């Protein structure tokens, strides 16, 4: 039964959260709390912190995550295909050849446009 399957997952999630939160509760009860303002400064190798941590970052990070999202979406179609394609034989293979071929074109395009270069 489907819902029973996922009941187990739900229980696993709840119990997992509880198990992970338990040591935090123990820490809250046991661990010392010494009010020393220096402790709570941002760590910057011992130097007094300067400037904002939230600075400007490289646009590369965005390009990589963009290509990732597009290819991750492709996976949506590959999973169902992978478990039924046997029944359809060559037809299913050619369908997937077209699908993966188009996406490989996309990968080559991204590659040639330099979206996959870090430097």
């Amino acid at each position, binding site marked *: 039964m489907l819902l029973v399957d996922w009941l187990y997952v739900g229980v696993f999630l709840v119990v997992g959260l509880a198990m992970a939160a338990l040591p935090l509760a123990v820490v809250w009860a046991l661990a010392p709390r010494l009010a020393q303002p220096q402790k709570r400064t941002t760590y910057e190798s011992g130097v007094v912190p300067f400037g904002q941590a939230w600075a400007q970052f490289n*646009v590369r990070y*965005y390009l990589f995550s*963009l290509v990732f*999202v*597009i290819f*991750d*979406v492709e996976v*949506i*179609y590959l999973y169902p295909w992978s478990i039924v394609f046997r029944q359809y034989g060559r037809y299913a293979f050619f369908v997937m050849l077209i699908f993966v071929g188009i996406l490989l074109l996309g990968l080559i395009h991204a590659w040639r446009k330099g979206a996959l270069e870090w430097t």
Partner: protein
Amino acid sequence: MTLGLTHFLVLSTLLFCLGLFAMLTRRNAVAILMGVELMLNAANINLVAFNKYVAPGALNGQVFALVVITLAACEAGVGLALVMSAYRNLETVHVDEINVMKW
């Protein structure tokens, strides 16, 4: 009272309206995109719910939901690329400040 179609429709209505509210009132383009994502999710709940309660003979609703997720990903990719581009050229991501077309 058992779980029926109406429950899901109410949930998706509320979610859709929250998304629409974000679209109408937010200044940040990324927040507007998040509102769009909420609205698409609301539509997806409806698709899957109708699939189960109204037309359970085929899986067209679920397949369509998958297509919507695909399009949502494309929309996020292109939309956020536009945000990045606007930020680079105009130094802002607030939609009411992106008004160079006015002149």
